[in-house]
Structures are given as structure tokens and as C-alpha cells.
């Protein structure tokens, strides 16, 4: 039993290392090659875990080979447009100026239900509102709406940003612990934090569950609930 236990831990660590080597991109939307690698790794890892007749290295070598191949192929696709086209494919336009490209939909085996679902997910309920709908290489639908249907933006209304509008609030205290980097990000000091907490009736950051603050020192405090 201990053999299986330790093998599982070792393979877990190797897979985590592998995913770290592949980078954050791997954890989000998957390109076809990345999906293949992810499926293969999950299958290969189970073999040496389940079957102690398989040497551990028989699982480690293929996992590391797949991870490294993925990194090398990613580097290749970064440099070469042709390689990118072969490995990841091209984005395809499904709707152009409110008109559906039915031939492209057949090529992609994209049903009308799939299309409508993706449109609704993007908060578009009328095809006529769509200027461009593009199926990305990850299979996700990106939509560019016609000008009449676009959400109003600050630039359309000629609004100027107020100070602090372009810097989102940061977490200053998380579950009783002060995050020094966030304090620095907000250009604030520990003294300000102590004073603010006192003003709000708290003696210590340990009493706070969550505190967020922006660069204008506008803060929100959520008190920690007592354990029952």
C-alpha cells in the first residue's frame, strides 16, 4: 500500500511541476495540442499508480516527454505562423454583418443551437446585432457587436477617468493577515492601516476577515465572524 501511496505523491508532484512548466496558458482555454497533452498525461499517470509492475520511471518519462514537447511546440508556434496554423488552426468567421456563414458552420460541425448558446453566453440574443462572430482556435466564440448594439463606453461619452479609477482595489487584509505587497501597491503604510482599524473599532488585523482598498485609500472592511 505504501508503494502506491508514495508513487501517487511522486506522480502528483511531477504533474504539478509539468503544468507549471507548461505555464498558465495550459490552465485556461486549451488549444488542440494542449488538450491532447492534458488528456494523455492524466491517463499515463494512472498506469504506474495502479500497476506496481510498471516502473515509476515508465510513467515519469512519458509525462516529462509530453510536457517538454508541448513547451517546444509552443515555442515553435510562437516563431512560425505556418506551424501555428498547422497545430492550432485558424479562427473562423461564422457571422459577418448579421449574416450566418452556413458553409463554415457545416465545416466546423457547429449546430444552430451551439451558435445561439454561445451568442446568449455573450449576452447577444439577436443575430442582427452581430457585426462579427469568430470561432477561436480554442472553440470559444468571440463577438463584435454592431455599433448600434454596443455597450456605451466612457470614451463614447467623452468621460475622463477620476483618480484611482484605473487601479482596482487590492486585498489589504485576508483572513486576519496583512498583505504587505498590497499596502505598497496602494502607497499606504502600516501606520495608516493601524489608525484606520482603530477608527473603525478594531484593535488588530486578526479581527478582520477581508479588507480591500484602492490607491485613493477608499476601503471596505468585512469583520471576521466568531467561530460557533
Amino acid at each position, binding site marked *: 500500500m505504501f508503494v502506491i501511496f508514495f508513487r501517487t505523491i511522486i506522480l502528483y508532484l511531477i504533474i504539478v511541476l509539468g503544468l507549471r512548466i507548461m*505555464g498558465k496558458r495550459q490552465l485556461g482555454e486549451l488549444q488542440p495540442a494542449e488538450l491532447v497533452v492534458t488528456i494523455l498525461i492524466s491517463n499515463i499517470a494512472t498506469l504506474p499508480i495502479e500497476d506496481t509492475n510498471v*516502473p515509476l*520511471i515508465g510513467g515519469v*518519462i512519458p509525462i*516529462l*516527454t509530453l510536457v*517538454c514537447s508541448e*513547451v517546444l511546440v509552443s515555442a515553435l508556434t510562437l516563431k512560425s505562423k505556418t506551424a501555428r496554423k498547422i497545430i492550432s488552426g485558424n479562427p473562423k468567421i461564422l457571422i459577418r454583418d448579421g449574416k450566418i456563414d452556413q458553409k463554415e458552420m457545416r465545416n466546423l460541425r457547429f449546430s444552430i443551437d451551439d451558435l445561439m448558446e454561445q451568442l446568449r453566453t455573450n449576452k447577444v440574443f439577436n443575430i442582427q446585432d452581430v457585426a462579427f462572430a469568430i470561432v477561436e482556435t480554442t472553440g470559444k466564440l468571440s463577438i463584435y457587436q454592431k455599433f448600434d448594439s454596443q455597450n456605451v463606453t466612457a470614451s463614447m461619452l467623452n468621460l475622463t477617468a477620476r483618480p484611482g479609477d484605473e487601479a482596482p482595489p487590492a486585498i489589504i487584509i485576508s483572513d486576519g493577515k496583512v498583505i504587505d505587497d498590497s499596502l505598497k501597491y496602494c502607497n499606504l503604510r502600516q501606520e495608516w492601516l493601524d489608525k484606520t482599524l482603530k477608527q473603525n473599532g478594531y484593535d488588530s488585523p486578526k479581527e478582520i476577515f477581508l479588507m480591500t482598498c484602492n490607491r485613493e485609500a477608499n476601503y471596505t472592511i468585512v469583520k471576521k465572524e466568531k467561530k460557533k
Partner: protein
Amino acid sequence: MKRFYFSLFIIALMVALSIFTLNHLYKTKNQLIEKIDSIAFSIQGNDKSAAAQKTKELTDAWKQVEPQMIRYVRHSEIDLITSIVARLEPLLIYQNTSEFMANLNEMRTMVEHVWESEVPNFTNLF
């Protein structure tokens, strides 16, 4: 680019490890087959004491290489060779020469099979 070079390093490491294990397996195979052939030669020459001595040497040699081979060869094949090795000495002590020779030949075939199945040739790859 850090990841790219790290991947290249890991690939180089894996290639080096594969070459090392293949080389280790080749040397082990040659060493074992030499001993097996020598034992068979002694039996054919009716030199039982020399065969007994060489069989002990073969058993010791196998005990030495088994823990190393188990790290990169499927355990089922190693287990089979281990069970054959365990039978050799008793068969010789009880003078069951025909069974002894059959087991010796089986061991030779298995050692060669392990080597052949690890070589990255066309048959093994496809």
C-alpha cells in the same frame, strides 16, 4: 524562453538516462549470457562442481543487478527471471540435469527478450 531551455534540458536528461539504462542493460545481458553459456558448457562437459560454482556466481550476479533493473524494466519479466534463478541451485543439487538445462535455457531466452524489448528498433516502436 526560460521554459524552453528548461524543457530542452529535461529532454537531454531523459535521452542521457535512456542511453545509460540501455547501456546498463546491454552489459548486464552480456554478463548473464556469458555466465549461462559457461554453466551449460560445464554441464555438457559433465563438470558438475564447476557448474555448481558458476550457478552460485550467476545467482549472486542476478541478485546484484535485479534491484537496478527493476527501476526501468517491467517487473513481471524480472520476477520471472528471479523465479528461474531460485530453481537453478536446487535442481543441480538434486541432479535433475535435464530440468536444470531447460531452466537455464529459459533464463537465457528471458534475458535476451528483456534486452530486445528495450531496444528502440522498428519492431518495438511500431
